């Protein structure tokens, strides 16, 4: 079990560092730090005390926030696809770039589709008996955890669109998709509080942690999204033109 977790952490870390070493242009150290910190969240969530207390919803939610929300933000900020394109030889990079623009990838990385998938996965986990089953099976626990990480990552990547993936929608569409995902998360947290799943302890505190912790990360992602808009070339140029005094 632990071995599988360490493989999930160490292999991506090694691949990323190899990519940085081969990158054609200097790679900002902050992105490498974000990648390693994201993988660190994964290790903390899946090993140690958070993973050991299975029936406690507080520990489960702390792990869920790290896996499904904090780690995805850090992994997105690390821009792994951009690094891949810079590290690969040009012909291979062109093939990857074409792959990133194919129809299935474009559909999956649409912010509404990605956010919907993320929310649907969470509703499946907490709305059915899956949570109770997962608490008693280490294999299922790892599988569900990886799914939570991947769908959270996909949704965050689609909203922030930092990597060259598919088609990038405008800031308003992405902000609305993010808000819709946050609403689904909030409603789910309150539903868990109202009717906790069978066989868990600390349900009320766990649900509140999910709600408030989720809000903090959603506000952070919204701030990153709007900062990106504020600093985008088109918005800056527009503002500079508007700020010029009009000729008399």
């Amino acid at each position, binding site marked *: 079990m632990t071995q599988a977790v360490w493989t999930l952490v160490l292999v991506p870390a090694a691949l990323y560092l190899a990519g940085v070493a081969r990158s054609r242009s200097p790679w900002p150290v902050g992105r490498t730090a974000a990648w390693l910190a994201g993988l660190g969240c994964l290790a903390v969530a899946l090993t140690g005390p958070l993973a050991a207390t299975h029936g406690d919803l507080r520990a489960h939610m702390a792990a869920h926030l790290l896996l499904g929300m904090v780690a995805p933000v850090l992994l997105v900020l690390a821009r792994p696809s951009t690094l891949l394109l810079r590290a690969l030889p040009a012909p291979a990079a062109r093939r990857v770039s074409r792959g990133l623009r194919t129809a299935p990838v474009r559909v999956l990385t649409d912010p509404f589709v990605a956010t919907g998938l993320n929310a649907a996965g969470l509703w499946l986990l907490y709305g059915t008996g899956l949570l109770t089953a997962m608490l008693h099976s280490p294999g299922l626990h790892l599988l569900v955890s990886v799914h939570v990480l991947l769908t959270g990552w996909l949704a965050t990547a689609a909203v922030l669109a930092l990597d060259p993936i598919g088609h990038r929608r405008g800031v308003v569409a992405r*902000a609305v998709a*993010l*808000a*819709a995902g*946050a*609403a*689904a*998360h*909030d*409603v*789910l*947290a*309150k*539903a868990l*509080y*109202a009717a906790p799943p069978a066989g868990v302890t600390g349900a009320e505190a766990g649900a*509140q942690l999910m*709600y408030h912790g989720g*809000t903090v990360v*959603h*506000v952070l992602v*919204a*701030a990153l999204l*709007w*900062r990106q*808009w*504020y600093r985008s070339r088109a*918005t800056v140029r*527009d*503002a500079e033109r*508007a*700020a010029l*005094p*009009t000729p008399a």
Partner: protein
Amino acid sequence: MTAADPGRPDRRRLLVSGLLFGLGAAGAIDEIVFHQLLHWHHFYDRASGAAGLVSDGLLHAATWSATVAGLALLADVRRRRSFAADTWWGAVLVAAGAFQVWDGVVHHKLLRLHQVRYGVDLTGYDLAWIGAGALVLVAGVLLLRRARTRSAPGAPAP
């Protein structure tokens, strides 16, 4: 065109920024004052059922998203030198007041999702809640009208 007299698209952006921020501020005040400080409102009260859960979750996400978006637009409007205090504050008050009235009338009274306070006679609380919202809304409308007459073409220079 001066700083206090924004052009048409800029004025629209200024209004949208104020409206979004006002909506977010009303939601944040409700959350901070009535949930966290007074404890009159609860994370979940057993009586409100599924509709209350859904509307709470939607509003919570909408108000926080509106706050961030409103502040980003405000930063952009200031950078464009089209910020006008009366227009922006007017929009903030209109949105916050409208939200408060809508919350008081639709959520509390028509849908009965939750109440201002529990275990007391509600008449005074409801009147205060909706009345305060209406006052803020009217103040906002007055501010916006003043801003409009001042920047209207042909108006005497301030």
